[in-house]
């Protein structure tokens, strides 16, 4: 009994060690030898990365990643490359990339210094701007008009802290209401319990596009904060990160990015043919022109 147990424990330790060896060996070698790659995707981050039903995934970042992987496939001279899609959440995306379950994560991950300790980030192709959504007939045009008004935001996001900082810096006071998720926060705006919804621009645009009457809402005011959203890869594999960045450079040089933006942010997208309607921001345009992997902290300094 004891011997059996011991050998079982040893086998487990062995398995863990082998897994670690797999994780540290080059992702490129793994792709070449197995002919498959695992892409981490989000379930409902419209239009960046989301499911269109039947375990199919699509979106701005997902399409970029498919282009990157196609480029890598050509470089490795593989005839076929099978892409496995692995849905991830905000909580598990970093661990899954670290332990090798996911080779390349194409979701909505902010590149910041805390995460950069654990994972690597490819060059930024999308810069998120925190904005304000209001009802079109509310007459609110800037954050100054929100003093004393009810402002909705989602629990567990950086926007909550952002609002707090703004209150302190400008000596104003918001009456904050917290939704438990983005849909809930939008419902607060829709039902009139909140006068404004402060959140990432793409999330606001996606929720407005999905609402009953998209024309009733507007995204207004100054940009409250900017954050680079980047494709995530393993930290200990600079070779793979370089291959991804080379592919990104090629995609940008070929002039694909404005087309991709047009496709995902300005045209009707599957599955419900909604139009997100978010114009290309100067910050994102700048990121394409000067490819870099600077963390969010560098954006705040400007």
């Amino acid at each position, binding site marked *: 009994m004891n011997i059996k147990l011991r050998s079982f424990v040893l086998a487990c330790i062995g398995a863990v060690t082998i897994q670690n060896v797999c994780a540290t060996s080059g992702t490129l070698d793994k792709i070449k030898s197995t002919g498959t790659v695992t892409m981490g995707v989000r379930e409902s981050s419209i239009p960046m990365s989301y499911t269109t039903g039947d375990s199919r995934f699509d979106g701005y970042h997902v399409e970029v990643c498919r282009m990157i992987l196609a480029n890598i496939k050509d470089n490795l001279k593989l005839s076929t490359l099978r892409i496995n899609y692995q849905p991830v959440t905000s909580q598990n995306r970093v661990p899954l990339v670290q332990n090798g379950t996911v080779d390349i994560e194409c979701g909505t991950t902010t590149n910041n210094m805390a995460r950069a300790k654990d994972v690597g980030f490819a060059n930024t192709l999308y810069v998120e701007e925190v904005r304000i959504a209001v009802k079109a007939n509310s007459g609110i045009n800037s954050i100054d008009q929100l003093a004393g008004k009810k402002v909705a935001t989602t*629990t*567990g*996001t950086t926007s909550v802290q952002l609002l707090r*900082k703004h209150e302190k810096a400008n000596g104003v006071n918001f009456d904050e209401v*917290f939704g*438990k998720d983005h849909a809930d926060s939008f419902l*607060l705006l829709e039902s009139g319990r909140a006068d404004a919804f402060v959140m990432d621009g793409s999330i606001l645009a996606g929720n407005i596009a999905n609402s009953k009457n998209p024309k009733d809402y507007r995204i207004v005011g100054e940009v409250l904060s900017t954050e680079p959203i980047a494709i995530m890869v393993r930290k200990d594999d600079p070779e793979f990160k370089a291959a991804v960045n080379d592919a990104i450079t090629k995609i940008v040089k070929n002039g694909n990015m404005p087309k991709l933006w047009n496709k995902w942010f300005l045209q009707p997208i599957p599955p419900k043919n909604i139009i997100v309607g978010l114009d290309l921001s100067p910050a994102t345009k700048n990121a394409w022109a000067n490819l870099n992997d600077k963390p969010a902290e560098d954006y705040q300094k400007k």
Partner: protein
Amino acid sequence: MSLDVGVFCKSTLDGEVVDHCFSALFGLGQNADPSYLDWLMKAWGWTLAVAGLSLIIAIILGAFMGTLRTLPVTNGMNRVLVRFSTMWVELFRNIPILVQVFLWYHVIPAFILPLKALPSYWLVSIALGFFTSARIAEQVRAGIQALPSGQQMAATALGLTTFQSYRYIILPMALRIVIPPLTSECMNLVKNSSVAFAVSVPELTLFAMQAQEETSRGVEIYLAVTFLYALSAFTVNRVMSLIERRTRIPGFITASSDAVLAH
């Protein structure tokens, strides 16, 4: 895994360590910007406020509905009251608590417009109070029905009306019997108050979700929140057991084993 308790001394605005971490708690110092500890205490206050208000609603309504359910069906009025209280209990204990909270927050104010002006603190307390009142009503009914039927008969023989027999004979006995299950119900209420985060009451659960995102120190934050929930529930437990001992009548059902030993 090392714990960094220092996270609670950091400012909620810039993440720098504040000047008066613990002294601010006792009013000795004043922080320029609130620290996570200050916020945690405020959140605890909200949790206790929600639990307290819903407890008041739940005990009053629960005792009332539980009593109505045991009324003797001797006339039409009583029959209506029994049906009404039965419906009340079945309605509020058959819907999940989170769904009830959303009903009170999103759905009912859409039909009863004045409710829109009520802050979410009140709405969630009503939801929790009604939900718990259904459970307390059943315990009170059980307490009343546990009494020997001779008590009710003796009251009637003395010429007491139904109201008087409940007021002077039945309820003083029955309410003492149900104190132990009521204790669990009150403790449950403290823990159930965590659903208030879903309707934007800044209580402990909302604090935990938000602060762990801001500080990336989830383990420390959740440990602190767990401790405060446990402490609150345990305090309720002690208070209830004090009430149980104080209201005990030696020689009756609630006189527990030590009273028996004294004989």
